[in-house]
């Protein structure tokens, strides 16, 4: 469950340390809730954890004090769950096989984590066009990285 909480944290907080803190906080709250008998159906633990993630992220965004209290209480660092690094030589080769527009779109998008509007404006393309190009490029990249032709 911890890797999923971390991904949720990365997605919504865009910060590795904040995501690690979220893992710690959500797991502690979940354990506390289980001990207190608040989690009645263990078959739905994923929903409980997701709901807790949402609540905590909302609190973090509001600058909630509870997070700080919990972090002070449970300071030992959580272990990281880094994504396996891709083969960069292979990735460079696969990027090189993309069409120029695909390469520019996918690099500018994922480098800056820009939404379609920003990349569309910078490259003189429509939002929908950017999205289509990105989808196609991502598919080709993944295929190429797994050994198929881009």
């Amino acid at each position, binding site marked *: 469950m911890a890797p999923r909480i971390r*991904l949720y944290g990365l997605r919504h907080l865009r910060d590795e340390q904040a995501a690690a803190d979220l893992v710690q906080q959500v797991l502690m709250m979940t354990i506390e809730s289980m001990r207190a008998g608040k989690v009645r159906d263990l078959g739905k633990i994923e929903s409980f954890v997701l709901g807790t993630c949402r609540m905590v992220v909302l609190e973090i965004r509001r600058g909630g004090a509870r997070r700080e209290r919990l972090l002070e209480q449970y300071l030992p660092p959580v272990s990281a769950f880094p994504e396996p690094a891709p083969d*960069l030589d292979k990735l460079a080769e696969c990027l090189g096989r993309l069409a*120029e527009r695909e390469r520019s779109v996918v690099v500018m998008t994922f480098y800056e984590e820009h939404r379609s509007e920003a990349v569309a404006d910078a490259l003189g393309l429509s939002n929908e066009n950017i999205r289509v190009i990105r989808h196609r490029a991502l598919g080709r990249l993944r295929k190429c990285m797994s050994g198929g032709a881009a």
Partner: protein
Amino acid sequence: MSCANPIDPAILGDYWLAELSPTDELTVEEHIFGCEDCTQQLQSVIALAEGIRTLARQGNLGMVVTREFLDRLDREGLRAREYAPRAGGSVACTVTAKDDLLIGRLAADLSGIEELDLALCDPSGRERRRFRDIPFRAGLSEVILNYPIGLARQSGPDVLVMKLIAVTEQSDRVLAEYTFNHTPS
């Protein structure tokens, strides 16, 4: 893969970029929290994004970029060596160990152009590589190329001619040529 209903990685990319509707985002998150396979797929999308960031920072991706993109790299502390020969002109260029990026800025009148290629040629005119159908924003008057810095570092003295080419169904038309006289540092 044991997930009976795996999420398309393109959708996971949209999710990562916060481009899904709130309803779709909720659906994806509920699925991921109950699915090991799609968690791994999301991790691989994020890893791909991180790999792309690493390669871009290394300056080894030959691609057309924007001024905004270079500004972002500059804010991150990367040092770009830029050359901007005028159309029809030439420039002496090199690359040093301190440089992170090698940038060619090619000024041209792009008004009315619908499709644009960028060719990298020998002085004799033989094409070494052609960037086909490059993206460009109407109204801008230059194309910015991020040249793979590793290639330049490995290169001995060399002359590279870049040509911006307007492409139509009928023919190719060279808009401008730019000569880069490279000398190792």
